[in-house]
């Protein structure tokens, strides 16, 4: 059986962090970078542009952001994405679990969180993501090109 080029390398799943807090994005990127291809966007509108070409497997989403907030992003993203990523909302809101439910998010991560907590929810949600069949019919959970 012929192996594709992707099979010869460890395929890193794509994680997209959408948060206007640059310091937090950098911290998350540092925490996940070894295992995942991590990209970030400062608001929902920038993220919608990004996901057109680079489909993430998981989105870590802040709620309150300038230009386009987390609520608007989710609505528009769910409408457009062919194979929607798992969405985990991140916020310090006291009623985050309810907000996440209303939003139809797959999970929630309350700020402040431990990096272990972050890694755990990322692993859990990615494991729950249904396999997506690519054009060759091969079951795949992600694509390997880095997000830039």
């Amino acid at each position, binding site marked *: 059986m012929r192996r594709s080029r992707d099979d010869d390398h460890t395929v890193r799943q794509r994680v997209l962090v959408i948060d*206007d*807090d640059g*310091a*937090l994005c*950098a*911290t998350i990127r540092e925490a996940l970078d070894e295992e995942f291809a991590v990209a970030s966007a400062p608001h929902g509108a920038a993220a919608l542009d990004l996901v057109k070409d680079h489909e993430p497997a998981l989105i870590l989403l802040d709620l*309150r952001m300038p230009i386009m907030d987390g609520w608007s992003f989710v609505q528009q993203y769910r409408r457009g994405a062919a194979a929607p990523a798992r969405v985990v909302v991140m916020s*310090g*809101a*006291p009623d985050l679990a309810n907000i996440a439910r209303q939003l139809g998010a797959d999970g929630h991560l*309350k*700020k*402040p*969180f*431990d990096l272990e*907590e972050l890694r755990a929810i990322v692993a859990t949600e990615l494991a729950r993501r249904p396999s997506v069949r690519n054009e060759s019919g091969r079951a795949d959970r992600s694509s390997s090109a880095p997000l830039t």
Partner: protein
Amino acid sequence: MAGPLIEFVCIAAAHRPRHQGEHPSTVTVHNGRWAYCDSPADDGHDWVTSGGVPLDRLRRQPARDQIESRSA
């Protein structure tokens, strides 16, 4: 679960809430540690170390008051 403690709080006068319980506030990262400000402002923060305070407590009492009561 209480979660990690907030290591920095913002005491900038301009970021003080006009009345207690006013939201939204900001939970962010400063110098690689969790930080809290009573205001949603992106900049103009005046961070001081808190010694480690649970977020819930900061929410009940403005950040500056926490620091002042600690040093009293």
